[in-house]
């Protein structure tokens, strides 16, 4: 019994400490969210800033594998961007077996060119051909052998001629001012080396030729719940870590980087499907090791809409890959753990990600298993279990509602009463089923990783 009580106490403390960390993140994020929001309101009344062109050339790299459904929409959304004349688009076809390559070639009348690309960053799988759009020399296409998203991004980087680049997923549409906003935040942050953008859910939205016509919450409950999750993650999660100078992960689907720093660390990790996690961790490590003043910032107002899994099977697959990729990244940079050289990252962020974000599923699942065993042998204390469940539900529900409230008073992505109501109910529904599903998924992924299984490099999850 003492052992069981001790276990209950441990789980309770675990959840409470997790609670406090998220509250800390929420509080830390408030300044940047409000300031960023107010800035966007001020820009409305200062035409000199509002009418500024894109201030510096940038390359948008879009790696794609079997993405014929949305690749054109993604490219059009960049072409619709403010300052598009200064945006160079590099699509990297990573050995697609569907009609992606043909579709892009035909739509933009691409012609093969003889371009000598650098080998500054190692690319594992061969680049076959390079194309340039006939009527728009800002659009290039690299056709290469299949090698995974990281490899595709690295190939794109070898062709990049600008000092800044943006990674964009093929199923992601950017808002017209999103790249401008990323650039603006980058230029405003002294010594910035990366600025993370904010993601919203594309599923359910009405869009045409790269433009979002109506932003809606999907009727699919899984997608609606992910809308809440993304809102939580991007409205206060990323902003909070950026404010604490402890970011370890930005959305690979939409982030601006300084090319020179990424090239210095050898580009994206070929062997990791969570290359977005790994690259930010690596950049942070570089900062600390070389002692240079630099910042990884976040722009909550720079919005892109991305597709999310709409079936449990795809959701499981995606989250499994993310979990394994994240564990791999943390192990790769294990020297950061409680290392004073890395400051906040070493003492707060890394342990939190290890024991909180990534470890949570594993720890809670152990709690479920032990709870089930105790129930089986009639040793369960229902009072303890009820309180633990209440505390856990209370934590996630209050965070979701806090995010919902923040989104109402600042960056209100979802206009209209129906959308807001949908978001509200999704925030509640999230805690009854999907969260538990995710916990189990992450736990199994962790165990599989411990037994030597690795996520396949190829898929774009």
């Amino acid at each position: 019994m003492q052992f069981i009580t001790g276990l209950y106490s441990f789980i309770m403390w675990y959840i409470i400490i997790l609670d406090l960390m998220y509250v800390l993140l929420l509080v830390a994020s408030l300044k940047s969210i409000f300031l960023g929001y107010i800035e966007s309101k001020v820009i409305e009344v200062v035409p000199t800033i509002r009418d500024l062109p894109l201030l510096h050339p940038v390359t948008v790299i879009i790696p794609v594998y079997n993405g014929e459904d949305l690749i054109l929409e993604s490219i059009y959304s960049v072409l619709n961007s403010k300052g598009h004349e200064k945006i160079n688009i590099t699509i990297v076809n990573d050995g697609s077996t569907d009609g992606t390559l043909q579709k892009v070639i035909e739509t933009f009348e691409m012609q093969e060119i003889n371009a000598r690309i650098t080998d500054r960053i190692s690319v594992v799988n061969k680049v076959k051909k390079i194309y340039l759009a006939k009527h728009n020399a800002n659009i290039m296409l690299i056709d290469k052998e299949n090698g995974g998203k990281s490899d595709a991004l690295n190939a794109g980087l070898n062709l990049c001629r600008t000092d800044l680049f943006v990674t964009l997923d093929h199923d992601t549409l950017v808002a017209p001012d999103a790249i401008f906003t990323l650039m603006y935040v980058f230029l405003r942050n002294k010594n910035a080396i990366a600025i993370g953008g904010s993601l919203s859910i594309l599923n359910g939205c009405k869009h045409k030729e790269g433009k979002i016509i109506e932003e809606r919450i999907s009727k699919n409950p899984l997608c609606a719940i992910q809308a809440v999750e993304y809102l939580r993650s991007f409205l206060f999660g990323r902003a909070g870590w950026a404010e604490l100078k402890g970011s370890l992960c930005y959305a690979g689907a939409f982030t601006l980087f300084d090319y020179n720093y990424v090239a210095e660390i050898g580009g994206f990790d070929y062997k990791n499907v969570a290359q977005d996690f790994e690259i930010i961790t690596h950049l942070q490590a570089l900062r600390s090791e070389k002692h240079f003043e630099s910042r990884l910032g976040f722009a909550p107002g720079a919005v892109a809409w991305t597709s999310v899994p709409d079936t449990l099977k795809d959701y499981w697959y995606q989250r499994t890959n993310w979990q394994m990729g994240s564990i791999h990244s943390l192990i790769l940079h294990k020297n950061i753990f409680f290392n004073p050289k890395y400051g906040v990252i070493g003492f707060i962020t890394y342990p939190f990600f290890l024991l909180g974000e990534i470890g949570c599923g594993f720890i809670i699942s152990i709690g479920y298993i032990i709870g089930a065993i105790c129930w089986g042998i009639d040793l369960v204390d229902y009072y303890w279990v009820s309180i633990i469940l209440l505390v856990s539900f209370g934590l996630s529900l209050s965070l979701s509602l806090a995010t919902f409230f923040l989104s109402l008073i600042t960056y209100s992505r979802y206009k209209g009463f129906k959308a807001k109501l949908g978001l509200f109910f999704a925030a509640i529904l999230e805690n009854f089923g999907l969260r538990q599903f995710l916990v189990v998924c992450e736990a199994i992924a962790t165990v599989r990783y411990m037994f030597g299984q690795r996520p396949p490099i190829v898929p774009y999850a």
Partner: protein
Amino acid sequence: MHPVLKFGVEIAIAEAIIIVILIIASIVASILSYISENIENKRMRKIEYILLKLLQKHKKFNKKLFPKKFHNVRLLLKTILAFDAQRPPHPWHELRAEMLEQLVLPLARKKIKSISAITQIYATAAFVLKTDTKDVPSLEKIQYKKSPLAYLNCCIAGINFGIKSIVISLIKLLSSTSWLYQTGYSFLFHGAPKATHHIVAELLAQTEDVSIRATCYDIMLQFPPIKIKIDVMRDINSDDLTLKLSALKYIAYVDREAAIPLLIKQLASDIYQVRLVSIHRLYLLDAKEAVQSIAQCLNDEDLSVRRSAAKAIIHLDKDGKEIVRSIAPDLNLELANMKYVADMIW
């Protein structure tokens, strides 16, 4: 009860209270945001109505027509900008000036002293539209580190109205940070009045600081060409790449005759950025005499240099395509004659 369990109960109760508060706050926030948006729109329409009436009757601005509820800098600025966008009839500019002088600026002068960064931001936004000499000391006090956006507004005001101290402090700030950072702010000088041109030209003539000189050259590209008495050659021969490139661009911009032979000479530079800028400037200057020299860059080791050279030759010489084909047969001519990313950079 076990102390941890007791603590857990307290946490659960606290969370329940927070959840209830958040639900109520969300409902209230939704209602309030709906109401405030409506109120703001209503007030904007009312102000527009008053202004239209004054315009139609050709009357002067009268502050008494605007009750206290309209005394909001953001609201007034938004209305003015909306009016500007509609291109209202002629008396608008006089009325606008009077409105700024009598209503908006007095409010902004009070607000600029506020410790709140947000209030300062809106106050400084008003000075972007109009600034008096007496406002300069207040604007000079705004510092970048404390409020970057308010500082940006002050810079715009300083550039728009030729406030020497602000312009010089901005140039010094730009020159001391990375050139990437520079790009954002140097564009603010586009369309600046002559007074600001003279401030920059004067600083360029006086300073020895390499970074400040480079920044001044880049800013001068935003103005109509002004030839000033400075030793540009010294800067073109500088070891500092940024200064070198800025000086090259400047001389190409202001003195075609002197620039062309200089740029042709720079085509042999071992720094690819210098070759690229030189080709691009020769292309912009329509320097037909440079075709043979540029042709030597068709087999350059750098992709952007090769492409820019091909484009320049095709533009400068009617037989340009043949020239390119004979020297660089692998270069795709149809695609060469298009804007390339290199043009965007340089």
